């Protein structure tokens, strides 16, 4: 029995934006690639938003921008998926690769859950198919005894199969994708003449790979040739990063029933901290030691959301700087204690100067430095 949307911690994109997707589909007049739920133009509108609201069933839908980053990258992704090659999204952790792949799958195929979670323990049967052993013993290798896995489903239904963290999968598992992507055929020898699944139009693969995992299981060049690569870079503008934090936190709060609006100034302060620590230079020109751990926007969202929850459940409804700094330390200082020194250095120079210059929130942020331990 499925979970009701309201009970889900994180509903899938096609559920969370179900009505919006439906409205876009019904208003879509452009040509669709075979088996796509909507046209490339409508997919682009769904992900990048539109100034024009869409009216459906007497209701008006504002299509908000869901992916704040490189618009041309999204366009390239859509065009790739309509072609003959898979799409591989690579980049630092926390750069919204998974989010983008979910948005694309939900818009194109109506499902973002046909997914293989890549790990060191991923085996071929988790990707292609396995057997219901009770039925297998009773009836032998017959189609009803077969348990389809995401790749099989994607090919049979003509929908997108997502591979998360593909480079964490063993090389031989990765390579089993090569022939499928080339020939678009999956062979099941046990089923004899019924054992050939020809991929239906609309089938494609979106992989995501984390560049910090490079070398864990480097992709073979044969597999690389079957994909178009898109490198997702961290957000380079602090203002955009602030907007992402606000959007994501508000979404999380709504999903979890937290009735508290986001504080734009805190988001700006956090975005500025993450941006400066990642770039190694402050807006005032200080040269900063960059921490070794990942300073992604996703991490900033998590720090904000943690602090927001503390304020909501245990505080007075406003985010305290003490709490923010504690969460910041928890997020940054993971693998290396030296990073704490770097954060401390950041507070003693940049935050100190900003607190003197701007006062207010920055001053309170600086005063909360006692939690840097």
């Amino acid at each position, binding site marked *: 029995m499925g979970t009701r949307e309201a009970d889900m911690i994180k509903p899938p994109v096609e559920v969370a934006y179900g009505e919006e997707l439906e409205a876009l589909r019904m208003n879509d007049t452009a040509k669709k690639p075979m088996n796509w739920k909507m046209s*490339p133009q409508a997919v682009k509108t769904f992900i990048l938003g539109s100034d024009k609201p869409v009216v459906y069933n007497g209701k008006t839908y504002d299509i908000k921008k869901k992916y704040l980053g490189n618009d041309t990258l999204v366009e*390239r992704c859509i065009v790739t998926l309509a072609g003959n090659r898979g799409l591989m999204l690579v980049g630092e952790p926390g750069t919204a690769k998974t989010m983008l792949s979910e948005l694309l799958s939900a818009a194109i195929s109506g499902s973002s859950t046909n997914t293989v979670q890549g790990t060191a323990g991923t085996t071929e049967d988790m990707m292609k198919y396995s057997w219901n052993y009770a039925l297998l013993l009773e009836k032998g290798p017959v189609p009803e005894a077969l348990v389809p896995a995401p790749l099989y489903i994607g090919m049979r239904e003509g929908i997108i199969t997502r591979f998360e963290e593909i480079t964490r999968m063993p090389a031989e598992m990765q390579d089993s994708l090569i022939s499928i992507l080339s020939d678009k055929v999956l062979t099941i020898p046990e089923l004899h003449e019924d054992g050939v699944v020809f991929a239906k139009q609309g089938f494609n693969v979106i992989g995501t790979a984390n560049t910090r995992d490079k070398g864990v299981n480097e992709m073979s*060049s044969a597999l690389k040739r079957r994909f*178009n690569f898109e490198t997702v870079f961290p957000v380079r503008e602090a203002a955009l990063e602030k907007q992402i934090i606000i959007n994501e936190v508000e979404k999380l709060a709504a999903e979890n029933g937290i009735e508290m609006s986001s504080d734009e100034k805190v988001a700006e302060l956090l975005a500025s901290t993450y941006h400066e620590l990642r770039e190694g230079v402050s807006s005032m020109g200080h040269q900063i030691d960059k921490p070794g751990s990942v300073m992604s926007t996703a991490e900033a969202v998590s720090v904000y959301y943690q602090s927001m929850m503390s304020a909501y459940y245990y505080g007075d409804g406003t985010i305290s700087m003490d709490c923010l700094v504690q969460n910041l330390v928890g997020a940054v200082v993971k693998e290396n204690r030296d990073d704490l020194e770097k954060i401390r250095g950041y507070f003693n120079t940049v935050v100190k100067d900003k607190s003197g210059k701007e006062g207010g929130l920055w001053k309170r942020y600086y005063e909360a430095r006692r939690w840097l331990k």
Partner: protein
Amino acid sequence: MEKILRGETLAEVDGALSDVIVDFDMERICKDAFSLDNQVVYFPVRHHSPACAYHLQEVIWEYQPDCILIEGPDGANELISVMTDEETEAPFAVYYSYKDSEGIISKEAEEYRCYYPFLDYSPELVAVRAGVKNNIHTAFIDLPYAEILAASEENRGLRKNEEKNNYNDDYYLSTSVFMKRLVEKSGFRSYDELWEKYFEIDGMFLDSREFIGNMLYYCVLSRLTSRESELLAEGCLAREAYMRQNIAQAKEKFQKILVVTGGFHTYGLLYGQKEHSLHNIKKENQGVYLMSYSMEATDGLNGYVSGMPFPAFYQAVWEGLQNSCENASQVYRDTVLKFLVSTGKSVRKKNGSPSTYDEICAFNMSENLAKLRGKRCIGAYELWDSVLSSYVKGEYTKATDLPMRTLRKVLTGDTIGKLCKNAKVPPLVYDFEENCRKYRLKVGKTVKTELVLNIFASERHRQLSEFLHQVDYMDTGFAVLVRGPRLALRKDRNLIREIWSYKWSTQVISALISASVYGGTLPEAAVSKLRAELKKNISSAKASECLIHMFEMGLCNLLGDAFTRLERIVLEDGDFFSLVKTFSNLIMVDELSGLYRSELDVTGLIRTVYRKLVIELPHMAQMKDKDVPETMEALKTLFTIMEKDAYREDRQMFVDALYALIEKKHINPSLLGCGMGILYGIGCMDADLIGRKCAGFLAGTGEKQLEAAGVFRGLFFAARDLLLVGDDYIRIIDEFIGRVDNEQFMKMLPQFRIAFSYFTPTEIEKIGSAIADMHGIQKQEFNALAYVTPEQYSYGTQLDEYVMGLIKYYG
């Protein structure tokens, strides 16, 4: 374009700017500017645009003007015949120069220059060519270059302090508030992408009237959202007043006048009121020449603010349009395919991997991207995206960006223009050619030739060397010093011959033309360039390097007031390390003046630097380790100089400074050692005292003990004979090494290694023997120590294992 300029997008952009745009009647402007019944027709252009050039051709054919007036300083009118000569090939540029000897522009009396580049698809060149071909009166109508300078405020317009100023002013269009908002709103990554979609591509599907209507709309909005004070400061209003005057004069003579200017000016030309009076600047100080130019220099991505990016791409589009203007889509399609294939081919040659299938995928992607973006056909930006997606394999990093680098290169192109034989050249080029004839250097052919010059043995060779150094200093790319003394780098000073490699090319002539603003002869130009260099805020080290160049070029006797300026730079410089470099450079100039036959007397300047350094010395005690070698070298140079008779009177000052330095509480150990060594060398410090100080370090606590090696390093650098005169130092070091634990020793080892690297092999042998004697070991015993190779060691281990096995086996 309709939609974006006159639809909702503009309404949003416009809304924010409503206070700026008043009395805006576009219909009237269009009628006034572009009605073929008018006596004057204004054609607005972007300076490098195939679409503008194409429609301009159409309008010339339709309107049949009897006069074409073009935006450009009117000094270039004399070059029209050269520009349209059959032998002349684009890209080329008009080079304007002005020597402000009268101080009209500023008190500094500086030299100014700027370039006006032309490509085959520049509308202005299309107008010039069409005018000359059809016997139409054709002329440039803008203010002379020097007058534009005089009408501009400091650091504005053509007086901007940039390495290369370009006459074209399309930046008005791309940087206006209106355009920035429009780019933001319409989701393009840059102004150039927007321009390509709405003007280059869509423009080819419109008739000329509609195209010009769109151009006018966009240019007028850009104009109205620019501040008048800005336009005044940049000389823009003065230029428009002058152009209006020229148009008015033409109206008296001609019936049908076509005015081709940057679209930004059309509004000003139609409705401007201001008058402008000229400064009557002397003609002899102004230069106008045509020079060959490169595609690279016209690429907007190389910092040429007015240029469109990807000149080779648009050149191919332009050539395609000339053959098949009816089918612009096909032209763009063919061009994209051509560049995809040529990029793939180039990348494959350099071990890249795009396959034919990658090329097919890329082409499909570019077509589908164009559809998704609502473009009528594929453009340069779809080409860019498709190569990024299909050719780059793996994460996009410096290691994988070869396809993008290659694409960028082919999109820019490497075409270099060519001038006809009649092209006038400035006196500097004559001087260069005259010298080449005098020294029988091969010019006119692009053949690389090598020359070997005995600069100290032959007067003629020395003169030729001076000439080549001068040509090199002017950055012409004509000659390269392959081997020989490189004084500025302090390299190979012992060499007595110079080996030069030289090669003539049209680029050399272009470089000389662009350097002609500095003077009519190479020596004059070189000294002017030096003067300009010294006017910048440079360090004394950099200034002394300039002096060395003058020295190599044999121009020291022409320095005049430039030497005074150099002295001032030295006096104002408070940076110890910069002064150290200056000091070494000046000493070198002084030492080599006989050999290089220079009469420049730098002893006064050396003394000045010397005193400044000595004053600074005691403050240098706590320096970083990385600066130590340089400082020790400086101390040693000071010591050497002080021994010379000319500087003997300053000796006590140096000794006092050294004492002040070594008595500092917190002093870098190497510097302390070096200071003591020099004092010992001068005879102002006793060897025993130094020995006691060293022993104190060796017997000290942890940190101080570690510093001992640094002290020895400095000491042996300055006075290594201390170790050789007796056994005392060897004994204390030996005792110390015997006493110290392994970990401490390993920490000190690097400094000790450096300390002993100052000794010659013979001295090392002597020290080794002394140590051997102390330990009662004979030298032969050291020699007898056999070196065990890894193979021998491995064999020995195996042998051991084998024997042990046997013993075990036999019990």
